[in-house]
């Protein structure tokens, strides 16, 4: 087992800015000794590539891609496994003037057909000219790409055997695109974020310098998938642009053994790691039965959190679980961002404890104002949010009312952002791009939030907002409350509104559960109904559905719009007629 690459370059000065392209960043990092380490589920280094070697291999492969005659900016689909070849291919594209398109991996039990269809749509929308993966996934990839004309499909070794061009490489320049990321939009109609060299390098520089105040001696670790912006930009491109070593574990290995993440942080004295709430929650769950012997988290400087709604209760549990092994409360750094802004827009102060804001839900529902509420009052009336900090320098963030005017402090509205990190648009999708990008350089994120002294609090997705009798209700609220019931699992609830004929809205809640038997189900329905009423003060139609009937986006977020569309199409009702055991619907 090789030793991991060093944390600090002996001679090469630490440099976090001044790179206008990814290739410039790699050319510099390649002069040091740092690089990428890939761990097995048993915690051993099974593969390794220094930035020096990454540069050599990427340039060599780039010459083969050039010889294949792909047009400049041709799209190259790469199934984003956490292996060195992914990085080599990604950077070969940068050197060859091609655009890498990282694609998701098959992870669901029995989900083969659905997966093939998903990547088929993505490759077709990207108009990919080449697609590559490892030997064990090649059959899936071939199946997905078989009807796409002009698509060259091969394994990494197939591409390594192609002839090299004898030319000088023309890497992607500062005014050219960088990569295309399909993690936005629903599964059936994915939208490809076109990141440019400028948006990518601007965002990374801002994150490293201002957001996370990176320094020599930082070491990063990641289990995040490389087809998602937090994994790709945060933990593949970002570390490279500051010549920092990364220790990787595969996402599926993390899901099985999350404490391995913490063990490697401990062993390698890592300082930076990110995760959505889910990852921290999983660690707490496993820590209940697992041993924390030999884990020391005192080196951990930045535990970034973002990617979904940040739940203060999850952070609190993580702190109380891991404080005994050296975890510091101030390590948590809440952030807000989206793939359309490359990765990040705001960070809470990296050196301070994270802050929360608890507001009066009744006042909010009636007036749209986030009024602070005392913590000793009625728990049903309040809601706690984690504050995500200020936008990074050079970036703008505004909260607007529906008429476009700016809100006052603590007034909830639509989050708009601007700055050099914004994407060029959705790939070959003018209509979708125009829906979110304004002519004067702002983007409507689709998210809602409010500001406190310039610091952002995200409250939810505006398109998901439920309005009943003039009151605003966040679907998250209903979902999370139901998820706290012991029979219900996290992520298994979708709440949305359905418009009635008179234009008013009514609430529908679809709940995945495995409870069987009429009596038990009726009992559960009653408890859910009570819970919703207690949480949101509304009555809701409740649908009990089998596990895995909810629809997720490709980045694993709940797609309420899709669940709603299926509900309206009768997908849930139909099956309830077939079997009393299948589904039951309780009208109000």
């Amino acid at each position, binding site marked *: 087992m090789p030793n991991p690459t060093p944390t600090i370059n002996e001679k090469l000065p630490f440099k976090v800015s001044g790179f206008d392209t990814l290739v410039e960043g790699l050319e510099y990092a390649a002069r040091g000794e740092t690089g990428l380490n890939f761990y097995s589920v048993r915690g051993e280094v099974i593969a390794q590539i220094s930035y020096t070697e990454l540069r050599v291999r990427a340039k060599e492969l780039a010459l083969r891609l050039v010889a294949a005659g792909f047009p400049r900016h041709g799209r190259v689909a790469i199934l984003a496994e956490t292996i060195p070849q992914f990085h080599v291919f990604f950077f070969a594209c940068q050197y060859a003037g091609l655009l890498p398109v990282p694609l998701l991996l098959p992870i*669901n039990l029995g*989900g083969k057909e659905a997966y093939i269809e998903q990547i088929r749509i993505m490759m077709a929308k990207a108009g990919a000219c080449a697609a590559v993966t490892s030997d064990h996934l090649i059959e899936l990839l071939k199946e997905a790409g078989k009807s796409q004309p002009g698509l060259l499909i091969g394994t990494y070794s197939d591409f390594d055997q192609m002839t090299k061009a004898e030319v000088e490489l023309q890497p992607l320049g500062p005014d050219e695109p960088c990569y295309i990321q399909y993690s936005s939009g629903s599964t059936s109609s994915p939208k490809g974020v076109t990141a440019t060299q400028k948006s990518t390098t601007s965002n990374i520089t801002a994150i490293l310098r201002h957001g996370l105040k990176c320094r020599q001696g930082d070491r990063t670790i990641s289990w995040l998938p490389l087809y998602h912006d937090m994994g790709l930009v945060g933990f593949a491109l970002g570390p490279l642009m500051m010549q920092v070593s990364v220790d990787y574990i595969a996402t*599926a290995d993390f899901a099985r053994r999350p404490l391995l993440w913490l063990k490697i942080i401990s062993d390698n004295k890592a300082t930076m790691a990110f995760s959505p709430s889910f990852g921290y929650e999983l660690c707490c769950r496993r820590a209940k039965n697992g041993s924390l012997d030999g884990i020391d988290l005192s080196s951990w400087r930045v535990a970034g959190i973002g990617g979904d709604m940040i739940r203060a209760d999850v952070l609190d549990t993580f702190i109380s679980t891991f404080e005994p092994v050296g975890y510091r409360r101030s390590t948590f750094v809440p952030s807000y961002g989206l793939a359309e802004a490359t990765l990040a827009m705001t960070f809470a102060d990296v050196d301070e404890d994270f802050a929360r804001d608890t507001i009066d839900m009744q006042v909010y529902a009636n007036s749209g104002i986030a009024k602070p509420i005392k913590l000793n009052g009625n728990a049903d009336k309040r809601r706690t949010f984690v504050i995500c900090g200020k936008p990074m320098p050079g970036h703008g963030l505004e909260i607007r009312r529906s008429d476009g005017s700016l809100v006052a402090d603590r007034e909830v509205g639509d989050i708009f952002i601007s700055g050099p990190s914004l994407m060029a648009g959705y790939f070959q999708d003018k209509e979708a791009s125009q829906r979110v990008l304004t002519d004067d350089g702002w983007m409507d994120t689709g998210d809602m939030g409010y500001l406190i002294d310039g610091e952002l609090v995200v409250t939810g997705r505006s398109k998901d907002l439920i309005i009943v009798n003039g009151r605003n209700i966040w679907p998250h609220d209903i979902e999370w409350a139901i998820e706290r019931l012991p029979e219900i699992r996290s992520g298994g609830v979708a709440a949305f509104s359905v418009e009635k004929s008179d234009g008013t809205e009514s609430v529908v809640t679809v709940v995945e559960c*495995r409870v*069987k038997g009429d009596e038990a189900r009726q009992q559960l329905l009653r408890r859910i109904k009570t819970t919703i009423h207690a949480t949101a003060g509304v009555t809701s139609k409740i649908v009990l559905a*089998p596990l895995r009937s909810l629809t997720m986006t490709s980045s694993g977020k709940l797609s309420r719009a899709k669940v709603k569309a299926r509900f309206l199409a009768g997908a849930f009702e139909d099956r309830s007629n077939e079997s009393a055991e299948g589904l039951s619907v309780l009208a109000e």
Partner: protein
Amino acid sequence: MPQEDHDLVFQKTCALLKVFNVNNIELTKDTDIATELEIDSVAILDLIMELEDSYDISFPMNLMSELRTVGDLVKSVQKLVSEK
């Protein structure tokens, strides 16, 4: 490494699946793990972890999308054991 006996692997797998078999249906090699047992994605990983630990094997994750039934699972365990 000797071939792991099919029946033994099957019995062991069924024993591990027992906690997820809330309706007490009879487990056969054709039982669909995801739909008939209604086991969630985190629980599936728990199960895979148990099998890995019992047999000292490591499931390549690309295999997951092709596993549907108890029989599929048993066959992969046998294959992984014989490849050790």
